[in-house]
């Protein structure tokens, strides 16, 4: 135990240094290995397709979690998406069916009752593996320390469970790219983005875990909308992925137009996270120290990003001791603050239709 702990710490000690990018570069050309934690979810579907269609990536597993819709839908949806893509070799491990402490809030208003915009695909024939999502994440990460990356597209419950069950795990993961959070206002509440809002405690655990995070939040994803042109391109595609993606996005467009005829089109939140992982130059990344609000009555799930020291919290109540603001700036995330939408859409539509 001691010996193992020591070895892990040695690796962990390097995680924050320049060693890891160098290690990745050393295997330049070889696809980067990823696990996708996801709650499909209409935009999750396109993001998963994008990852499967990207030669730079090797998808090791999908780990569905309750989020956009309950787990008993996100799990079969993940299996369905792999069948559509003809990638039934990729294992799917069921994750948490509820947030750590809170009641599950879903977003079926945006993703349809079935989570895929109401588009009906056949029931999946393949089955999930018997391992749980946190167990699979732990096993795969430990089987190849410092090589397995995570892309998280839903609430962070599975990752929080894995990180608390195995505290050394965050040090063994070179990068976690997550769709979630916002430094410029939320979508489900004025301050919170949905994925963080659903399980703020899990998000807090992940942001404090020390894993190197790339945060792709609403600041950029709300700009990453597909319009009529892109949807038609997908619908005209000749491969099953493109056509399934076209159906799902078309359903999203129809749903949006019903409530707002001037709507431009659905935002491809999750796909932008995958695209950022593939090519970070699509976005502008800035170092932030991000904390997740877990105590707020109106603001739970808000991601609070500090650009520099001092790290000031709410002022203490009268009669309470004065806490000095933190004067050291220790960034824990690279936050996407701007995006080249054209390049993103070219990548997304180009790859899905190819």
């Amino acid at each position, binding site marked *: 135990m001691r010996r193992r702990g020591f070895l892990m710490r040695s690796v962990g000690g390097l995680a924050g240094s320049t060693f890891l990018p160098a290690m990745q570069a050393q295997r330049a050309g070889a696809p980067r290995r990823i696990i996708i934690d996801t709650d499909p979810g209409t935009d999750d579907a396109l993001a998963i397709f994008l990852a499967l269609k990207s030669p730079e990536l090797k998808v090791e597993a999908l780990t569905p979690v309750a989020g956009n819709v309950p787990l008993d839908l996100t799990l079969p949806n993940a299996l369905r998406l792999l069948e559509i893509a003809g990638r039934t070799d990729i294992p799917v491990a069921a994750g948490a069916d509820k947030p*750590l402490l809170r009641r599950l809030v879903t977003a079926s208003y945006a993703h349809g009752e079935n989570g895929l915009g109401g588009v009906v695909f056949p029931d999946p024939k393949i089955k999930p593996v018997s391992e749980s999502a*946190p167990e699979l994440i732990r096993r795969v990460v430990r089987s190849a320390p410092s090589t397995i990356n995570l892309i998280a597209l839903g609430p962070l419950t599975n990752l929080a469970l894995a990180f608390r069950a195995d*505290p050394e795990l965050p040090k063994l993961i070179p990068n976690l790219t997550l769709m979630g959070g916002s430094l410029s206002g939320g979508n489900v509440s004025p301050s919170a983005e949905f994925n963080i809002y659903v399980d703020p*405690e899990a998000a807090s655990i992940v942001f404090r875990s020390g894993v190197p995070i790339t945060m792709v939040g609403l600041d950029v994803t709300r700009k990453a909308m597909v319009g009529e042109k892109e949807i038609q391109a997908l619908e005209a595609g000749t491969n099953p992925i493109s056509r399934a993606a076209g159906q799902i996005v078309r359903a999203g467009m129809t749903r949006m137009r019903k409530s707002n005829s001037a709507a431009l089109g659905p935002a491809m939140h999750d796909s932008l996270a995958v695209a950022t992982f593939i090519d970070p130059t699509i976005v502008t990344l800035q170092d932030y120290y991000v904390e997740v609000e877990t*105590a707020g009555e109106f603001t739970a799930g808000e991601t609070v990003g500090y650009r520099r020291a001092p790290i000031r919290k709410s002022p203490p109540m009268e009669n*309470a001791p004065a*806490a000095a603001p933190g004067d050291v700036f220790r960034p824990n995330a690279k936050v996407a603050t701007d995006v080249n939408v054209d390049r993103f859409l070219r990548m997304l539509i180009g790859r899905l239709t190819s």
Partner: protein
Amino acid sequence: MKRILTSTAALLGLLLAAYSLQAQPKRYVVIDQDAAGPAGTDMMSILLLLQSPDVEPLGITVVTGDAWRDEEVSHTLRLLELIGRTDIPVVPGAVFPLVRTQQSTELWQQMFGKIVYMGAWSKRPTSHGPYEVPPLREGNPTIKAATEDAAHFLVRTVRAHPHEVTVYEGGPMTNLALALSLDPQFAELSKGLVFMGGSLNPQTDNPEFATNPRHEFNLWFDPEASHITLRAHWPSVVCTTVDVSVKTQLSEQMMKEIARAQTPVAQYLARYARPGRSYLWDELAAAAWMNPSLITSDRKVYMDVSLDHGAGYGDTLIWSDRVKPALDLQLVSAQMDVNMPKFAEDFIRLMTGPTPKAHNPLMLTQPPPPEPKPNQNP
């Protein structure tokens, strides 16, 4: 005459024990502990369970609480080496509570007052970082812990024997909460939960409880994990409260009787236990699970933990049927009083008996060397 009677009684007792061994299948238990050591409540409760011929311990999972996890794992491995039970897996679990942090707790104390006992977070000369293992007084182990994590081990172990495994908890509930979140059926598939934790209205002037009767370390250390665990649908929950714990004591007399036995367990206790200094917190939870007649009074209450981050964060909450809110709360059998002489009897009998399945114990069975006199060089 008296001698014959005694030996006949002993023989009868042996026969009865052998009979009950055959008649009753062993009771499975998985032990989750914040296993500080040597001796002390955590190690001694593990020992009671390991010493019983009626109990099959399936593993010991370890969680930060009284001390940091890695040091606790070492104490546990060393204990197993000393008594010859290295076949029992020791599985490292959570190092930190789910949500509570040491830093936020320090701020909390500035607002709401001093926490008397902080476990791994105590500021002592011997305090150290989460992953450091200092030299242990009883010697450091040579055997290794399991490579699985505690939460998954718990899930796997309970699933291997559906409805047969009792989950014994002697520390903060982080590992249990993780297991419950990993496997929504974990609680239902167990035989039940037995834990030391919670405080109702203890009659004591101990400064830890005198002004703060609803504060208890195990539930307090990881309130969110306690909440997840107490809300789960266990077939039954038995709780050893502070109320009953403060009525127990490891007396000098008990230790004297134990120290006479030339067994590895008795000699381990003779060296490291500190009679007259501590309540038998976790030991009673273990002993009363094996012999429920030790408990002379209990209360059936709904139990939860306050997650309000204000003054009551981590305090024990209880309700009766009359006042409970319309929430999915679980009924707990909270122990309130104990037959201490009977408990002492069980304690001495188990701690002086042979260790079932022991193999090559390392503990010397001679009495410890006499304390060096002050004028002698050590």
